[in-house]
């Protein structure tokens, strides 16, 4: 007796296409599009989805999690400083206290739990999908993203005449890390001037990244290391606690905006 039930290739194909088409239909007009599926983007996505906000994460790689899989110097123990361990508690990530206020956990455990938490909260994800451009509306408000398959960008131009598609949203969150790709699109149009990294290293720079997470332009929120690039904040090492808290703050700002509180 076979292990698996009988099915046909055509049924498998129809299942994939029909679900994907249904998903894309929903993505065409959603509440929040988050560009970048690293720790700050996933954290923001998860918090918003838990509040019943429709969220789509666009990730250019096949895998989610960005740099959260691994710590400094390719060693996969990651550290977070208090109070970020409270987020690990929420995600069900086990960790050890290295010393008072400093906690460590395996990167693969923390990252997989965060991805799982985001998916279970109801976040939609388009992986292997690259951000191409922004949609602008009245007074240059950011109102969505133009996307394309990641492989399209990797092929020779003469065989990649694949036009992108546009997805509308009430808000966009730039969680693309150092590249600040969404903010850079505004800069290309002369609508904003980013500062690049600050040269000085100061202990409180993690705080500054969290505190600056929020709107940088109408319709556009910036979180994670993209905050550093946008505002020229001091360069930091791998500080995942601030990425998680930055994502949470971005979600909070977005939620208040959507609910008309601010």
């Amino acid at each position: 007796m076979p292990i698996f039930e009988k099915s046909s290739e055509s049924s498998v194909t129809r299942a994939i296409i029909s679900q994907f088409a249904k998903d894309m239909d929903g993505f065409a007009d959603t509440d929040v599009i988050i560009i970048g599926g690293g720790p700050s983007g996933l954290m923001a996505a998860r918090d918003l989805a838990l509040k019943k906000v429709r969220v789509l994460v666009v990730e250019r790689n096949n895998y989610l999690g960005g740099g959260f899989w691994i710590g400094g110097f390719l060693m996969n123990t990651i550290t977070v400083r208090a109070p970020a361990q409270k987020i690990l508690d929420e995600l069900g990530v086990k960790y050890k206290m290295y010393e008072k206020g400093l906690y460590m956990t395996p990167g693969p455990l923390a990252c997989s739990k965060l991805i799982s938490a985001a998916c279970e909260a109801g976040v939609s994800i388009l992986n292997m999908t690259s951000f191409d451009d922004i949609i602008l509306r009245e007074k240059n408000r950011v109102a969505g993203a133009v996307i394309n398959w990641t492989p399209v960008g990797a092929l020779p131009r003469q065989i990649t005449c694949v036009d992108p598609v546009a997805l509308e949203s009430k808000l966009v969150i730039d969680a693309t890390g150092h590249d600040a790709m969404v903010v850079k699109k505004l800069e290309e149009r002369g609508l904003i001037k980013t500062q690049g990294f600050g040269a000085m290293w100061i202990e409180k720079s993690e705080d500054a990244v969290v505190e600056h997470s929020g709107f940088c332009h109408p319709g556009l929120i910036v979180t994670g290391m993209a905050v550093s690039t946008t505002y020229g904040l001091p360069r930091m090492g791998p500080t995942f606690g601030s990425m998680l808290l930055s994502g949470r703050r971005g979600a909070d700002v977005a939620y208040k905006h959507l609910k008309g509180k601010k």
Partner: protein
Amino acid sequence: MSHTSTSRARSRVLRSIELFRPENRELRNLSSVRSYLGSLFPSVKVQLRPPIAETLDGDLLDSLASSLASARVKDPTMPRQKFEPMYGEIDYERRVLDGEARAGGLVYDGRALEDVFSRLLKPSTDQALIVITDRLISTFSTDDVRHHLRTVVCGFPNIVSVPGIVEAPARPREYYLMRQELEVQGAGQLRLEQLKRSFKDRFMDYGDSRTIEVVKGLALQAVFFHFTLDPFCGNRDCRFFNAHWQEDLIRSQIESGGLCKRHARAIKALGARPELEW
């Protein structure tokens, strides 16, 4: 108000020293600083004031937030630059002023901040104004063409930076060498606190109980500047020593905690007769 004028010299009595509290709450209790200054200048009224933002509202607060955002140092190798602040920068400054966000991790041009505060406080010679801030402040040096963090920027008003006490004077050389070694090993974050503990007492850290002692010395330096426009001393055991190293800061402000003979005499004389002459 005592005010004399001759063809050769003019003088004015210092009536009060005004200490403005920082925005964050960690160092709000400045009563020992008030007592210290009061003991040295018994005839001068020393007053603790709320953070500047608490005396403003509405448009003035928005304007202050915008001015503070414009006072940031964006490039430490460039002298004071004028730029249009971004929406998010102004929003952040406003939240700091409202107590919804914490100041930290950014550097502000000390002279630009002096201009901002000066417009609001309107300094005069009979009042020594000292703004205690949670912000890091710097001044540009033409000697090596870069900004340097400062513990105090003397001016009108004077600005004392609480985080500057931690970040401005350099830590012992060995600390930086060992930290670099840790970072190469990939253990910078994990063992940073241990490293700090091994240098305990050799530099000031955030939340250090000795901070208030340093603030006293810097506040006195600011008052002395108000009288003389010359706030520094070359003696490492004098509170007016311009410390570039943490160990010198600790020596001058805490271990010595006093003044050299010349400055002790000067402060005693000013305490008895608090007059500015020019």
